Structure formats: C-alpha cells, structure tokens
C-alpha cells in the first residue's frame, strides 16, 4: 500500500499546442522505475493533423520579429532550467547514469540558449547585397522554408531532440517532430516546457510512437517542405528519402551518430539553421 497514492501523468501527443491522445486510441508501453507508462502512439492521421497545425501556425511565427523569436527561444531555456529535475528523472529512467544525466541536461540548456542568440543574427550572416552590373538594388536574404519534419535521434533523448528541433524553429519554421519508442519521456517533458515557454501553438508538434506508419506519412506529405532525418534504420531512412522527392523536399540525413557527437561543436552551428532556410533574392531598379 502506497503512503500517498500519487497522480500519474498520461503521456500524450503535443499537437497544435494541445496535449492530445492519438486519434487512433493506440498506446505503447514504456517501463519506468518498475511502473508502466502508456504512451500515446501517433497514427498517420495524427501526423497529418500535426502538419496542418504547423502550417496554420507558420505565417504568424514567420512574421514575428527575429527579436521576439529570440526571446521565446530564450524562454525555452528558462523552462528547461526550471524543470531540470523532470528531465534528469526522465534520463535516469532511460538508464543514463546520474552524472551523465546532469551533464546532458546542462548541454541541452546551453544549446537552447546558444540558438536563442542566433534568431536575430542568422539573417545578417546569410544576407548579401549584391553588386550587380546594372542599375538595380539587389539583395539576398534567408527566409524560413515552412513546415519541417524532424525525425529525432533515439539517443541522446534530450540533447538530440533539442539539437534538432531548436535550430528549425529558430529560423522561423514550424516543426513536426517524431520521437521513437525507446525513450519518449524527455520528449513529453520538452513538450510541457514548450507549452509554457510562449512558443505559439503549432510551432512545435511532438508525436511519440513507432516509426513504421508515421515516418513514411511525414516524408511523403505534400505540405511538408523539408526533413531532418536522424534514423538508425537504413531501410526506413532510405524509404523516407525516396518519398521526400515527391515534392522536392530539402532533406538532411544524419543517421544515428554516437552519443559523443551531440555534445561536440559539430552538433550545432549556423548551418543547422541555414539547412532549413531559403535564400530569396530581390531586385528593384535604382535610378533607371
């Protein structure tokens, strides 16, 4: 008999700013500290709903000032810091040693803060005023590509997730994130942090569950502009890359790098933001 009967949290999907069960009603089981968590298992329909939520949220997210996006991403770091216990517990439950768990939470928070500062600088870094040979004013600058599908790496379950999702939204995109069955708790905790960090509804959508249905649906979805794939299963990765060609998606295929990779400098950079931005060139006559 428990001294106090605790309230257990239902592990749900995060779509359009709401925590919802899968429309399919399906779950998968995840064992944590000897208890069983029934985690929502996203269906193909959930993926389509999430893409729609992302597309709906996108114009307003894109049109916010870069300064405001930076503030919100910084707020995400604040939320992670204040919830570090929850993330540490989730990592411990997945079998990470206490010291390593604390280190991963630190690295994740630091990464979010690092990207917060990029929101209002990436455009300057990637923009050019082009010295064209005719009397025209000509500039090139980056714009977000739109809705980006992220298949998050299985491990490290917090740092890998943060490192892939944050640069996508930092550049002004909306993200539909698929998280596998191996360690879903950090993703659920991140969804809660995002929901309280002033990230507008639909900017980040997080779907848990096996990839067999969801990855092909996301990869072939005609209203998704780009994919960031971190998939260990080569066949699934190859099939997703094929489907992505149906509407000429921009695709980055990261595979399943070692845990160490995510802690290094090569797991962050302005090129991680640039990968999901388009360069727009504008011409106007000048004194013709």
């Amino acid at each position, binding site marked *: 008999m428990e001294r106090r009967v605790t309230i257990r949290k239902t592990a749900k999907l995060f779509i359009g700013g709401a925590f919802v069960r899968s429309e399919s009603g399906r779950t998968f089981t995840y064992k944590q500290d000897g208890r069983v968590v029934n985690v929502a298992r996203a269906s193909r329909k959930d993926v389509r709903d999430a893409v729609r939520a992302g597309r709906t949220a996108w114009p307003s997210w894109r049109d916010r000032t870069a300064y405001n996006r930076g503030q919100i991403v910084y707020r995400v770091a604040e939320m992670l810091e204040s919830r570090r216990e929850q993330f540490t517990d989730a990592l411990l439950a997945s079998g990470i040693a206490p010291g390593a768990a604390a280190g991963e939470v630190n690295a994740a928070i630091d990464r979010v803060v690092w990207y917060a500062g990029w929101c209002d600088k990436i455009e300057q*870094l*990637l923009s*050019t005023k*082009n*010295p*064209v*040979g*005719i009397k*025209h004013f*000509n500039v*090139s600058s980056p*714009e977000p*590509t739109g809705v980006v599908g992220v298949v998050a790496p299985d491990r490290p379950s917090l740092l890998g997730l943060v490192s892939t999702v944050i640069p996508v939204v930092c550049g002004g995109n909306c993200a539909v994130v698929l998280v596998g069955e191996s360690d879903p708790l950090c993703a659920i905790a991140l969804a809660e942090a995002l929901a309280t960090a002033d990230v507008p509804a639909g900017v980040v959508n997080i779907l848990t569950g096996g990839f067999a249905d969801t990855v092909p649906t996301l990869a072939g979805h005609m209203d998704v*502009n780009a994919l960031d794939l971190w998939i260990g299963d080569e066949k699934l990765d*190859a099939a997703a*890359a*094929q489907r*992505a*060609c*149906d*509407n*000429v998606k*921009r*695709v980055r*295929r990261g595979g399943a790098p070692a845990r160490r990779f995510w802690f290094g400098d090569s797991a962050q950079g302005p*090129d991680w933001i640039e990968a999901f931005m*388009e*360069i*727009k*060139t*504008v*011409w*106007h*006559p000048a004194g013709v």
Partner: protein
Amino acid sequence: MATSQAPIRRRRPGKAARTSTRSARQPADGHARLAVASPAGTSWPYAAAPESHDYLKLASRYELFIGGKWVKPLGGRHFASINPATEEVLTHVGEASAADVDRAVRAARTAYEKYWRRCTPASRAKYLYRIARAITERSRELAVLESMDTGKPIKESRDFDIPLAAAHFFYYAGWADKLPWAFPNVEPRPLGVAGQIIPWNFPLLMAAWKIAPALACGNTVVLKPAETTPLTALWLAEIVRQANLPPGVVNIITGGGDTGAALVRHPGLDKVAFTGSTEVGKEIARECARLRRRVTLELGGKAANIIFDDAPLDEAVEGIINGIFFNQGHVCCAGSRLLVQEPVLDAVVHKLHRRMQTLRLGPPLDKNTDIGAINSKAQLQKIQALADSGEAAGCKRYETTCALPARGYWFRPTFFTGVALSHRIAQEEIFGPVLSVMTFRTPDEAVEKANNTRYGLSAGVWTDKGSKNFKIVSQLRAGVVWANTYNKFDPSSPFGGYKESGFGREGGMHGLLPYLER
C-alpha cells in the same frame, strides 16, 4: 483616338483559323515581308538585317571532350543537331554511352587527384580568368552559333547569353582564391567530381553557371549539355583546351536522356547538379537519394507577375512582355501568370495586346528579331497542346497576327484572359510564349493566388507604393523576386527556387555553397 484603332485581331479558334495560318506562311528564306502594324494603321516594313555567319565553319561531326582530348564515342554513334529556325542539320555530335560516361568520370577523378586539388587557388583563379576572356574574345562567334543551335534571337544571345556567361567565369574566378573569407569559422573544401546536366534554353550560360563555381571551389566536372543544343558547350570545351587547363578538369559529353541517366548514377561522382524540368529533377533526386549523393536542382517555374492598379502601366507592360516572351518563353523563371488588379484589367490587356503585336517574329540571326524559333518540334507540340487546352477551357485567346516562316518551329506570342487557377495553363509550366492572365482585388488575394502553385522560382511585383511593394515581396514564396522590373540576371546575384522549383543557389556568394564541403 486613332491609336486605339490599331488593327489588332484576335485569332478565332477552329479550322478556318488554322487554314489562314498556313496561307500566311512565308517562303523558305524566311527573311522577307516581316512587318509590324503602325499606330496609323498602315504597315512599316522592316528590311532584313541578318548577322553574318559565313565565317563560322562547322565540321560535319564533333566528338566528346574527355581528359583534355577530343575522343570518338565508344558506341561509334553520332546524332544531328539541327537549326530549329530552318530544320537544317547543322552538324552531328557524339552520343556518349555509359562507357563514355565512365571514361569521363574517371578522367575527372584523375584530374581532381593529380592536378586540380594540388593546383594553388590563385592558379585556379587564373585559369578561370582565361576562360572568361576567351569567351569574350569569341563572343560574336559564340552568339551566332548559339542562335543557330537554339533558335533564339541574335540580339539576346549577343547581348545576354554570351556576355553573362563570360561574366560568370570572371566573377567566380575571383572567388577561387578567396574562399576562406566567404564563410566564417569554417574551412571550405572541394567535394571532388561533379556531374552536371544542363537544359537547352540558355546552353552556354547554363554551362557557365555550372562549371565556373564548381571549378572555383576546386572540383572537377563532367558536363552534359542538352541533346538539342550541344554546340556552344563544345566550343567552350575547345576554349578550355586552349586555356591549357589540366586535362580532365572539364569534360564535356554530349547525348540524350540515357547519357544523363548514366552520368547521374555513376558511382564515381561526389555531386550532381541539374537544371531542367521538375519531372526529370524528381527522378534525379530519387536516384541521388538512393545513392546518398549530394544534389542541387534548378527546376521549373510558373511565376506570377503581379500588377497593382497603382503601377506604372507602360513600364509594367514592358516588364510583362519581357517576362514572358524573352527567349520565346523558354525560361524557367518566365512570368507566365499575369495577375492584374481588377480596376486596370482592361487597360493592361489593351496595352499588352498592342505591345505584343509589335514583336517581330522571324529568323534568329536577324538583328531586328524579337521572337525566334521554338527550340524543337517536341517543345512546339507541347506548347500547342497546352495552348489548345486553354482555348478548350474557354479562355479568350489573343495572339499576334504576324506571318510565320515556312520552315522551322514557330509559335505566335499568345496570351489568354479569363484564366482560372485550376486551368492547366495556370498550373503547368508551358515553357513557351504563352501568358495566362488572371485578376485579383486585394493584395492578400494577389499573394494567395501567386503562391498557389507547386513551383517557387520567381515572381514579379509592380506597384509605385514602396511599403506595399516590400510587404508583397516578403510574402511571395519564390527564390527570385523582381520588383518593378523582370528577368534581370547578374553573376553576383543568387538564383534558385523554393518548393518544387528545386534547391541550391547559382550565382553570388551563395552559389559557392553547393560545391563546398563545410
């Protein structure tokens, strides 16, 4: 006012119209009786002003350029390259087989390992400067050859294609020894061997767009020009040879779709760059995804040209004309959808019709010619089919009344009004001199309609209101936006698409990225 009475007639659909088209055809010389309606309603005849081409001596056949040498194709097969304005065979070029592709890729690999990656960046720059200068020196010859092979007017090949091709080499030459300054905090490295496939609309210019940045970044290339327009690429090969580039740094192989497919899937490539149709681009993307190969794509477009009621209409009409009829509309960024704000629809259609009627269609080598020949019979049939679909859908067809030369592939400058977004002529890339006119009421509706396409290569906005202009420009989902102008290009200006118009940029500093490892 008399000017509004200019004799502009709309061609009526049906059999009778087709019969009259045939009877209006000219003798085979194609030069005589090009006339244009004057404002007074009479006709001003133009005397022919042909660019001479007798000094351009074409051999009866050309071979493949592999490893710095001209070599016969292993299959022993050649195919004809014809002049689309006369249907005469200009010459024959080698058809590269899979074995030839293999030879070319090996030559490029050897050149990469043995010469090019050991070559100092400053020397790479100087080789590229040599190419730029040689193109300029031989520019008239190249322009004549380009017009003969493609059917494009000499004034375009002379004033646009060839000078811009030279400028591209000159621009990227300067980057070759300055790459570390281009991107902060990274050490740029070449990728290796690039396979490049280019289209038939701007043959030499597209070759320059592909080869110049690749070489500047330290890569070697195998380039396949389009089947119908291989000749200027072969002249470029000779220029490369005369510039003394190490053998195999540039390889140029001619052929059709099979040659291109063999190139894309050759295991020895590090990168594929393709410019062409979205349909073929997707196939190439799938192949490259299968091979885990880097790829950049510059694909089709269906650009919206948006005219607000406060736009300077006469300038806008010039921009519309240039946007859709430049190079017979064989332009991936052609402004093929015209969106007109309702209050000025009648004025724009009237001005457009009058201006279109003054376009002179005729022999590409005539310096007065505005509209040359359609590039190939297949393309002509595609344009005809799509234009017919517009008529079948009930759109109103306007076209010029000019006579068509008796031989060659020709299509009258045409536009349709009453077009709906769902019509094929509003959705599919026609790649010909056919404009679809639609209307809108509010700026939001204009943006919505402009973005209602799977493509996203380019767009145009015409308004005298600065703030509105900036806002619309920022909302258009297109890689290049021309505001109060259209179809402007420069080596320093990045070009490339959003959505199904591809990814990667060509031109400018951004044009280095597709050829660098970072």
